[in-house]
C-alpha cells in the first residue's frame, strides 16, 4: 500500500502529462479542423451563392432586355422557398451608367438593403448578418444590370456550434480513451519500478542486503535494477566489514573496560595513599610552621635575654658590691670599730652603687617593656598605631646580637609617619628578611650592604628591602615563596621563612610582595600594604 503511494505521484504526473498532451493536441486538431471547416463552409457558401447568382443572372437577361420586370419579380419571388436568402434585387443600368431598381425580393423580417455601392460586392463579402454578393448581368458582353443578393449567415453559426459540439464530444471520448490507455500502459511501464521499490523497501525494513532486484524487464529499469544490485552488493560487503570491525571494537572495548577497571582500582588505592601522604604532609607543615614560629620566638627570647643581661648584670655587680660594703659596715659596727671615715666612705660608695643599680634596672625595665611590646605584637594580630622609624629601630635592636657577629652595613631610610598597622607582622617580616640575608646572602667574612627603605605612598606603606649578596637562580627565585623550599636543608633550613613572609604580607597585612634577584646581584623585595583606617 505504502509502496503504491510512493509511485502514486509519479503515476499521477505521467497521467497528467499524457492527458495534457492529448488535450492540447486534440484541441489543436479540433480547432484547426473547425477553422478549416468553417473556411470551407464559407467558401462553399460563397461559391454556391455565386453559382446561384450566375444562373439567375443568365435567366434574368431576357427579362432585362425585354423590359419584363413582372417576370423578373416572379423569378425573384422563387426565393421565398429558400429561407437563406434575405434579399435579392435586380438593377438595370442605362446608357448613362446610372442604376435603377428593376425587381426585388425581400424576406419579411429583413430590412431593405441600401442600394449604394452595389458594385463593391462583386466579390462576395461577409457582413455581420449576411453574405453579400453583387453579380453583373451581362448580355453579349454588355453590362445590362446587377443582381444583388444578401444571404443569411445564421446557418454558419449553427454549423460552428455543431462543429464545436462534435469536437468537444470527440475530445472527451478521446481523453477518456487516452486516460484508459495511459492507466493501462502505466501499469505495464511501472511494474518493474514497483518491483524495484518493493525490493528497496524489503532491504530497508529487513536490513537484508542479500536480496536482489529482477533484471529481466529488458528496458531502462533493468539497467537501473542492475546498478541497484551492484550497489547492494557493495553495501553488503561494506556492511559485513563494518560488522566485523564492530565486533572487534566491542572485544577491545571489553578488554579496555577491564583494564580501566583495574587501573581505576590502582589509582583509587594510590590516590588514598596520596591523600594520606598529603594529610601527613599538611600535619608536618603545620608542625614546621609552628616550629618556625617557635624559632623566631626563640630568637626573640635570646635577644631579650642578651639585651636585658647587661643592665641586670651591672645591677647584680653593683648590688653584690653594696652587699659586701654592707657586711664590712655591719662587722665594724658590731666590733665597735666603725669610724666616721669608714662610714663616710660607705655612704659615698653605697650611694654610687645605688645610682648604678637604679640606672641599670631602669634600663632593664625599659628593654623588657619594649620587648614585651614586640612579643605581644608577634603573637597577636593586634592593629595599633605604629611610628614607623621608631618601630624599625626597635626591631633592629632585638636583632643586634645577630648583627654584631657579622660585619654587614645596614642602610636605613624610614619615614617618620605613624600609621595604623599590624606591627607584629612587620616585626616578623623584617626579622626574617634580615636573618635570610645574613644566613643565605653572604658567606662568612664578607661584609655586605643591607638596605631597608620604608615610605608612605597613597595610603600604602612601601617597604623596599634589598641585599647585595649572592642572589638566586631563576629556578630558585620562582620557588622562593614555596613552603619548605630551602637550599640549606640539614643545616637548620626549614624553607618556611619566606613562606611566612608571604603569608603575613598577603593575609595579615592585606598587601603584596614581589621578589627580584639575579645570581651574584643580590635579592630585593618590594612589599606594600594598605594603612588600616580607624
Amino acid at each position, binding site marked *: 500500500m505504502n509502496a503504491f503511494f510512493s509511485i502514486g505521484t509519479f503515476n499521477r504526473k505521467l497521467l497528467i502529462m499524457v492527458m495534457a498532451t492529448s488535450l492540447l493536441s486534440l484541441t489543436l486538431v479540433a480547432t484547426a479542423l473547425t477553422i478549416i471547416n468553417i473556411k470551407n463552409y464559407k467558401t462553399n457558401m460563397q461559391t454556391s451563392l455565386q453559382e446561384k447568382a450566375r444562373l439567375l443572372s*443568365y*435567366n434574368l*437577361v*431576357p*427579362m432585362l*432586355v*425585354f*423590359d*419584363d420586370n413582372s*417576370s423578373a419579380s416572379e*423569378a425573384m419571388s422563387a426565393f421565398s422557398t429558400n429561407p437563406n436568402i434575405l434579399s435579392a434585387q435586380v438593377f438595370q443600368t*442605362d*446608357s448613362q451608367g446610372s442604376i435603377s431598381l428593376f425587381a426585388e425580393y425581400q424576406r419579411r423580417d429583413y430590412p431593405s438593403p441600401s442600394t449604394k455601392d452595389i458594385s463593391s460586392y462583386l466579390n462576395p463579402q461577409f457582413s455581420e448578418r449576411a453574405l453579400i454578393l453583387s453579380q453583373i448581368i451581362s*448580355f*453579349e*458582353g*454588355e453590362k*445590362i444590370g446587377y443582381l444583388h443578393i444578401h444571404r443569411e449567415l445564421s446557418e454558419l453559426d449553427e454549423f460552428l456550434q455543431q462543429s464545436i459540439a462534435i469536437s468537444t464530444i470527440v475530445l472527451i471520448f478521446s481523453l477518456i480513451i487516452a486516460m484508459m490507455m495511459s492507466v493501462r500502459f502505466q501499469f505495464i511501464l511501472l511494474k518493474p519500478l514497483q518491483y524495484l521499490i518493493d525490493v528497496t523497501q524489503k532491504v530497508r525494513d529487513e536490513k537484508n542486503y542479500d536480496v536482489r532486484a529482477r533484471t529481466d524487464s529488458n528496458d531502462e529499469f533493468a539497467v537501473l535494477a542492475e546498478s541497484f544490485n551492484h550497489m547492494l552488493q557493495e553495501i553488503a560487503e561494506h556492511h559485513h566489514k563494518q560488522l566485523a570491525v564492530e565486533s572487534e571494537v566491542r572485544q577491545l572495548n571489553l578488554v579496555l573496560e577491564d583494564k580501566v577497571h583495574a587501573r581505576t582500582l590502582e589509582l583509587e588505592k594510590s590516590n588514598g595513599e596520596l591523600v594520606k601522604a598529603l594529610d601527613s604532609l599538611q600535619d608536618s607543615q603545620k608542625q614546621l610552621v609552628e616550629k618556625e614560629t617557635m624559632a623566631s620566638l626563640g630568637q626573640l627570647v635570646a635577644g631579650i635575654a642578651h639585651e636585658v643581661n647587661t643592665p641586670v648584670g651591672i645591677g647584680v655587680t653593683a648590688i653584690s658590691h653594696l652587699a659586701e660594703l654592707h657586711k664590712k659596715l655591719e662587722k665594724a659596727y658590731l666590733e665597735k670599730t666603725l669610724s666616721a671615715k669608714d662610714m663616710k666612705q660607705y655612704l659615698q660608695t653605697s650611694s654610687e652603687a645605688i645610682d648604678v643599680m637604679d640606672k641599670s634596672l631602669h634600663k632593664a625595665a625599659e628593654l623588657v617593656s619594649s620587648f614585651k611590646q614586640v612579643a605581644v605584637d608577634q603573637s597577636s594580630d593586634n592593629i595599633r598605631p605604629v611610628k614607623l622609624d621608631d618601630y624599625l629601630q626597635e626591631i633592629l635592636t632585638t636583632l643586634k646580637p645577630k648583627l654584631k657577629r657579622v660585619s654587614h652595613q645596614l642602610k636605613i631610610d624610614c619615614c617618620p609617619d605613624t600609621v595604623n598597622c599590624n606591627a607584629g607582622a612587620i616585626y616578623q617580616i623584617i626579622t626574617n628578611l634580615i636573618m635570610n640575608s645574613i644566613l643565605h646572602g653572604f658567606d662568612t667574612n664578607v661584609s655586605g650592604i643591607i638596605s631597608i627603605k620604608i615610605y608612605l605612598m597613597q595610603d600604602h606603606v612601601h617597604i623596599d628591602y634589598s641585599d647585595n649578596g649572592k642572589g638566586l637562580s631563576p629556578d630558585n627565585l620562582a620557588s622562593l615563596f614555596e613552603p619548605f623550599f630551602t637550599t640549606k636543608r640539614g643545616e637548620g633550613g626549614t624553607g618556611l621563612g619566606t613562606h611566612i613572609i608571604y603569608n603575613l604580607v598577603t593575609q595579615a597585612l592585606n598587601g603584596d610582595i614581589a621578589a627580584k634577584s639575579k645570581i651574584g646581584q643580590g635579592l630585593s623585595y618590594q612589599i606594600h600594604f594598605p594603612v588600616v583606617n580607624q
Partner: protein
Amino acid sequence: MMQMFKGINLTHKLISLSWYLLCLCWPLSAAAQNTDATKLTVAYLYQMSKFTKWQQEAFSDDNAKLEICYVGQQTPTLEALLNKLASRKSNGREIATHHFADGQIILKQKQACQLIYFSEQTWLELSYEQQAAITKQRLTIGDSKAFLKQGGMLALIPVKSKLAIFVNPKAVEQSQIQLEARLLALAKKVTQ
C-alpha cells in the same frame, strides 16, 4: 461591340419613349403611337434573334447574313428602322433586312428570311401549306394571339404600356428552331 451597345441603348430609348407617348399622347395621335410601336417591335425582333438558334441548313454558308424580314404595310419609318438594323450583327452574323407586302413572295423568291415578322393579317392570308413551309426553318413572330393560334411561334402583343412576349410552345417544338429557355421562360404560353 459598340453596335451591340447602341442596340440596347436604342431599345431602352424606345421603351422610355413609347412609355412616355402612351401615357401622354394616346388620345392625341394614333399615328405617332404606331410609329413608336413599330420602333419597339423592330428592336425586339433584333434582340430575339440573339436568343434564337437556327439549323445549319437555314443558312447557305457560314458567312451568310441573317435575314430579318418584315411582312406588312410599308411605311417610311419602317424603312428607316430596317435600314438601320441592317448595319448590326447578331450572334456573329451580319444582318440583312427585307420588307414584303405578303408572305407568299418569300416562298416564291425562296428568300432565306430566318426571322419573319408578320404584321396584322398577313399570316392569316397564307394557306396552311404555305404556313407550314415557312415555319419549318424560320422563326415566325406575329402581333396577336390569333397568329399564335394559327401556328405562329412568337407574338409581341402590347400589354398595358409594354410589349409582352407570347409563345406557342407546340409550334416552337415542331419547328427546327431552338429558342433559349430563358426567353421562353418569360414568354406567356398560348395554346393552339
